């Protein structure tokens, strides 16, 4: 009986209205991190998407979920321009629902069109932007809100948002971490004490990781590995319990900062995860303080 009550309370808490600041922070920042990741691809539309670059033939295999034909050069350029425009429009909250729908669709397309250039950010970005599209993320601190306020100054300005929109991201993070933790447990993280060390020797190496590799004692890598594993496997607990939540947030941000600094190209993934963590779990008063300059227009 107590379990049912607990479950009912948990579901009720999940859907209770929350501060819209979390959603707004995510809407502003996540598209910028995604565009940052995409920028090195967007700079070469022909190589990325058109028939002028190398295209993998339509072969069956685990590598490619679907084989999409290359597009002409002009279309590749159009996709890249549309990606930038819709991403920035989403961040600014301009025609948010439409711009984010276009952004999400294009992100899904480019992820499927070129498997060779698709990574974790390519896979989670369309989902994140789709949720922003299906939520009222443009209701505050946006061009849409400013425009609405200009037309009708008496129109209500929502301070709250239905809880499901925020809960999606708050649940997604621990689910993501625990899934990653399970993959690590199934992999080598319990049997090999220097997994992190082995990833410091190729093109992901940065000056920071090179310096650490030469100065951090070997046991330091094992300790870091254990801490990451405990954090990821226990993430649902760390983020659910109020008294561990802020430590989980701090650890998560530190971990992604470390990953970003030590594994060069992964920096955009790290940045996106830090934005997700901050928007979902940072004290809402902090987010509201950061968003203060938006008070005047909307």
């Amino acid at each position: 009986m107590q379990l049912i009550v607990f479950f009912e309370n948990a579901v009720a808490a999940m859907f209770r209205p929350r501060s819209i600041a979390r959603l707004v922070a995510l809407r502003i920042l996540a598209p910028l991190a995604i565009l940052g990741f995409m920028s090195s691809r967007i700079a070469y539309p022909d190589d990325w998407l058109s028939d002028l670059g190398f295209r993998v033939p339509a072969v069956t295999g685990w590598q490619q979920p679907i084989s999409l034909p290359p597009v002409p050069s002009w279309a590749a350029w159009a996709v890249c321009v549309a990606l930038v425009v819709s991403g920035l429009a989403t961040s600014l909250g301009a025609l948010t629902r439409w711009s984010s729908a276009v952004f999400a669709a294009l992100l899904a397309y480019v992820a499927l069109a070129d498997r060779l250039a698709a990574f974790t950010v390519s896979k989670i970005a369309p989902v994140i932007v789709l949720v922003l599209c299906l939520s009222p993320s443009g209701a505050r601190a946006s061009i849409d809100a400013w425009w609405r306020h200009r037309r009708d100054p008496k129109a209500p300005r929502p301070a709250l948002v239905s809880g499901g929109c925020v809960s999606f991201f708050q649940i997604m993070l621990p689910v993501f971490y625990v899934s990653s933790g399970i993959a690590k447990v199934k992999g080598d993280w319990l049997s090999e004490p220097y997994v992190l060390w082995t990833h410091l020797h190729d093109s992901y190496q940065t000056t920071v990781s090179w310096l650490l590799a030469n100065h951090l004692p070997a046991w330091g890598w094992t300790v870091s590995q254990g801490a990451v594993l405990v954090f990821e496997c226990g993430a649902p607990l760390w983020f659910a319990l109020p008294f561990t939540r802020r430590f989980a947030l701090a650890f998560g941000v530190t971990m992604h900062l470390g990953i970003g600094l030590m594994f060069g190209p992964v920096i955009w993934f790290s940045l996106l995860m830090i934005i997700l963590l901050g928007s979902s779990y940072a004290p809402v008063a902090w987010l509201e303080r950061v968003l203060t300059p938006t008070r005047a227009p909307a």
Partner: protein
Amino acid sequence: MTKVAKRKDPAKTATGPGARLPGAHVHELRGGLAGVATGPGPRWVRLGLVALAVLYYLGLIHPPAKPSWLRPVAFFTDATGLFPRADAVAIEYRLEVWACGRSWEAIDPRPYFPIRPDDKESRFQRLGYFYDRNRTVMQALDAYISAHHAAGADDGVVGRTGGIRLFKSVRPLPSAGEPVERYHFDPFAPVPTEQRRDLYYTPASERKRRCSS
């Protein structure tokens, strides 16, 4: 436009500091004027979205078995296997071309794959990783490199070429705690024979045909 639903007594549901958003006006909350912004569509649509969210979470935890029609969708949930295994060696894919009248010569793949050319997020490195055993893809790479070299790409090799050779360099890692070398990608750096694994080469008959045609 975003729908703003009015609640009779949102103060009862607005817990914690949520009501302190700049411009949110606490007195409005108390007076029952503040709105709660909601997503699009009626309640049943939003409940449907919740169901989809649950499926997405399940997909993250355990990517579904992949019948062909589901693979494009499952692709977006197969995202959490981050560095699950230890590297045994540092892998780097390299390319050589058969220079007509000479022999195999190292070539710079970066002009052909300009996206992130110096690290393993390069499309060339990914191509080697995903398709090094796939003959159809390797033949397509052969045709692509040969055509663009003939068109004058600046890849470090002059003259006509008869085909390509793809190999990977497998560099052993130092033991934990040993000095680590600073990495930089050099497509022309020599690779010791014992660290070299040939993956694909254009058949000799085809190289001869191309060079003599």
